[in-house]
């Protein structure tokens, strides 16, 4: 990804629209919320093209352009100007500034991509499916918190993974660390002094190397305002304290789009097995239900006719367990797959009590289930 495109706009909405329009192309979109920040990012990153808003507080598009043109290292950078004003005078004024093109808002994303493509060569993003890391791959996590105990808690929560946790107590230190080393994800306390987490977010988005590193916010459960602000800023998610290991792992997995399916689904000997973990959080239930249909279809397409739900790790027949298992059974019935459930003797006893689970066909092991379904 060598093409860099800088969007300078005070409206986050427009920056998002620009980023979305350019997503299908092999380029990094850098963001700046005003002219001052835009100039700093431009002089550091030397973008291939700048998409510039006309009306902005702090430093408007005109002043930005004048300063850009007076910098020998940046003056040749092509600029496309965006403006809500289509009047003759405005258009003439824009033309005199030497911008390569301009677009009147509202504009369609396709039109923006076409105009950018006329000035610089835009190649489609790789058509081969993006290769995502697996949940059990090594991942580098940087925790930014002025309280060292928090980094310790996160290390403990992730001790059973192959993930490496390092820490920084200041946003500046964290930014340097991200630029110097390959950091996969940042977990930053939202209560850092002087809006440190939000500044870190903005700074990371201004460097090509770190522009796509996801951030998770850390917050106490009751701090709804700072959680909403983090979501608005663009944090991937917020993890609440006290830290729940399962929630943290799930949010990191989602932010990095880690492949976790292998943890639940496995196909062998003409059967699909679904293994549920001891506790089913909302994220687990969502991930299983989201992928269930495609997994079942795949086993049918491969000529399989059996579906085994492995509850060996499940200790209690809780409502999420029952709901997830029942919906999986229903989905397999639709595809005429024969289904059996594997569980511990304790779980089998519990399931015999409930009306909804009494009819489940249980086996004590995977092999026994396969024999049952023959």
């Amino acid at each position, binding site marked *: 990804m060598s093409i860099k495109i800088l969007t300078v706009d*005070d409206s986050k*909405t427009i920056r998002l*629209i620009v980023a979305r329009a350019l997503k299908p192309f092999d380029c990094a979109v850098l963001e700046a919320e005003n002219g001052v920040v835009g100039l700093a990012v431009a002089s550091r990153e030397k973008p291939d093209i700048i998409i510039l808003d006309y009306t902005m507080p702090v430093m408007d598009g005109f002043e930005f352009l004048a300063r850009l043109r007076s910098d020998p290292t940046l003056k040749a950078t092509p600029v496309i100007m965006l403006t809500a*004003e289509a009047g003759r005078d405005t258009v003439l004024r824009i033309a005199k500034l030497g911008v390569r093109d301009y677009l009147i*808002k509202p504009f369609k994303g396709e039109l923006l991509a076409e105009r950018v493509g006329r000035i610089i060569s835009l190649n489609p993003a790789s058509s081969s499916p993006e290769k995502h890391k697996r949940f059990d791959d090594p991942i580098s996590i940087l925790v930014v918190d002025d309280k060292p105990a928090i980094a310790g808690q996160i290390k403990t929560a992730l001790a059973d993974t192959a993930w490496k946790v390092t820490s920084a107590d200041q946003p500046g230190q964290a930014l340097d660390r991200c630029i110097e080393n390959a950091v996969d994800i940042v977990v930053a306390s939202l209560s850092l002094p002087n809006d440190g987490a939000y500044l870190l977010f903005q700074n990371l988005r201004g460097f090509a190397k770190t522009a796509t590193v996801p951030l998770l916010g850390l917050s106490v459960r009751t701090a709804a305002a700072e959680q909403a602000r983090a979501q608005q800023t663009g944090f991937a998610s917020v993890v609440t304290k006290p830290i729940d290991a399962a929630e943290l792992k799930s949010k990191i997995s989602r932010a990095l789009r880690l492949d976790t399916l292998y943890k639940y689904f496995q196909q062998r000997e003409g059967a699909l097995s679904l293994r549920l973990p001891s506790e089913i959080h909302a994220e687990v239930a969502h991930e299983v239900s989201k992928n269930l249909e495609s997994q079942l279809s795949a086993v049918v397409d491969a000529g399989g006719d059996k579906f085994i739900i492995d509850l060996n790790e499940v200790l209690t027949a809780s409502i999420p367990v029952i709901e997830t298992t029942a919906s999986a059974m229903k989905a397999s019935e639709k595809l005429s797959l024969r289904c059996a459930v594997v569980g511990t003797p304790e779980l089998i006893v519990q399931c015999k009590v409930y009306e909804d689970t009494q009819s489940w066909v249980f086996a004590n092991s995977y092999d026994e289930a396969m024999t049952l379904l023959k």
Partner: protein
Amino acid sequence: MNERIQYLEELTREAVPRIFRELLSMEVQFEESAPLPDDPTGQIIGSVGFIGDATGIIYLYLSMDFARHITSVMLGIAESEVDGDEMVGDAIGELSNIVVGSVKSRLCDAGQPCTLTIPSVVRGRNLKVEAASNIQRKVIAFRNSHHHLLAELLLKN
């Protein structure tokens, strides 16, 4: 004086449906009158002023429900993914900027040069703008399905 506010009304009546169509692929129709957009989720007003030979301000009144829908369409995301009121405020501020920017361009072309102010947004319940004296006022109502949108035009004499 009435001609000037009528001209502003004419420009706004043309700009709002066009911008909704081009930006949001959404149809809004002019209607003779409509209630103040409000619902249990609240109300939002986006505004942008213009200063010069023509000086005034245009307010767009929407229910939060409609504003949230517009935000999701603008950003190409599901309504459930619209995070917080700030995202909605930013989108409505930008929508107001585009509408008033379009009106301002036509005013300039018609020999009434003016410059735009930056957009501002107010959220709350039962909000209503009171015009001071020496101001001409006009309210235009639009409708999209069950949603209402009011544009309030204030023009200094």
